[in-house]
């Protein structure tokens, strides 16, 4: 990310002159109070928003320049985990994960094998035939993570994955994310405002405040607000 600025039509400046580089295989937290531009950062990364200035480059692809119909194809490089899960309500857990793979035209056998693998990784083997509405928040979030990693993405973007969960479930999710980071060598960018997580599992931490980057701490730990 280089010199990226973004403001919205309603006059809100979301990010100003941000430069940031994340290496392959890294695990990065992005922290900051509400309105500091965390979500905008994510939206710029996954191509939902276009930067006003500067360029966003992910896996060798200039994200801001993509056409509407190219965006989904670019997103195959990423796995995205949302705070509100965004599972397809009319599909079962198995189908939700399989859907991401069907989209890119994988054949049936590969899909079945990989979905089982993923379900095992997120420990939801017994829920394969359930619909999202029948699952708890933590379980739904694990499905989302499973869907995100099904296609072996280069980058996993997680937007407050623990936002709606209690501490115990959050811990589970974090362990899962770390496992994925180690096992699949996936770059993980995680947005959060949960200080306990950041302090317990120390990773590189980027702090945003008032549209600027205020700290980039390689060894991790939550920044005390002063």
């Amino acid at each position, binding site marked *: 990310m280089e010199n990226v600025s973004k403001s919205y039509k309603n006059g809100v400046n979301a990010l100003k002159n941000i430069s940031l580089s994340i290496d392959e295989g890294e695990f990065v937290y992005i922290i900051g109070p509400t309105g500091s531009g965390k979500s905008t950062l994510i939206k710029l990364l996954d191509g939902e928003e276009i930067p006003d200035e500067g360029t966003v480059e992910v896996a060798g692809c200039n994200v801001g320049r993509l056409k*509407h119909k190219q*965006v989904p194809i670019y*997103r195959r490089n990423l796995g995205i985990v949302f705070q509100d899960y965004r599972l397809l309500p009319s599909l079962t857990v198995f189908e939700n994960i399989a859907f991401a793979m069907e989209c890119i035209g994988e054949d049936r056998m590969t899909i079945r094998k990989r979905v089982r693998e993923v379900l095992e990784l997120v420990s939801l083997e017994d829920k394969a035939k359930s619909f999202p509405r029948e699952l708890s928040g933590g379980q739904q979030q694990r499905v989302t993570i499973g869907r995100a990693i099904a296609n072996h993405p280069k980058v996993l973007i997680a937007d407050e994955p623990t936002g709606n969960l209690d501490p115990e479930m959050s811990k589970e999710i974090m362990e899962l994310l770390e496992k994925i980071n180690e096992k699949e060598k996936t770059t993980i960018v995680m947005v959060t405002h949960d200080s306990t997580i950041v302090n317990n599992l120390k990773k590189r931490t980027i702090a945003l405040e008032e549209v600027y980057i205020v700290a980039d701490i390689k060894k991790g730990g939550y920044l005390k607000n002063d």
Partner: protein
Amino acid sequence: MIKFFRSIPNHVKTAFQSLIRHGAMTFSSVSAVMITLTLLMVFILIAGNISNFTVSIEKSLRIHSTIDGSLNEEGIEELQRRVENLDHVVKVTFSSKDEELENYMSSMDEASKKLYETYEGDGNPLLNAFQIEVDAGENMEVVYQKLQNIEGIQDSDYGGDTANLIVKTMDGLRIGGGIFVAALGVLAVFLISNTIKSAIYSRKSEISIMRNVGATNGYIKFPFMIEGMFIGILGAILPILITCFGYRYLYETMNGIFLIPMFQLQTVEPFIWYVSLILLGTGMIVGVMGSFFAVNKYLKWKR
């Protein structure tokens, strides 16, 4: 491209799945399509029959030409050939003067008939005549003018202004009916595509999720379009059944005519198939198009 064809069965499966899993939505869309198509069906049946009536009314209009009494049989035959060779003439029927008299008398009451019976045989003052059928009402006058110039034809009569008026009215009815059905068709298209659009509206977040996990626009659209097609087909089933059984029943109870013999109903067999085909086609095409436009709209909702 190979990937596209390989994914077709998958898309069809997805379409069926969401038809079932969004059961309430499917039901409401199908009923809307059904009602609209039933309406369309009723008007197609009416318009189709009215145009048939007008044709049969026009056909019943004939030119009546009397033949010069001095012509012998050979002369009459040659004259008939000449008239038959005229443009727009479909059929020429010879009617001898005896037949003419009988025809004339058939519309009289008993007392007058008795009076005229004395003319039967050699005393018949009428002339031999041709009944000339013309291909279309509007060509009546042209043929009439030509007949006037043919030697051997004493006099011709085709009802003049009255016939012209009937022809004009019939043309007006046909065109008006056509426009009406066309307008109703457009309305049906609009109604059906709107219903499908509002049904898909409830799934716009679903569409954006699909984009989030890397489904291309085409990949998202395809199952929706198949879904729309099936909604169209399902909605067309009932109107088609009503056409097939209802129209046959109607035709048989009315003996193929509407009130008076001049109003011939369309014969059942090819007619119901045409109507069914129109209904099925309208349902399918409109379903696909409605889905296509709706999904397109909601695809642009988020990047």
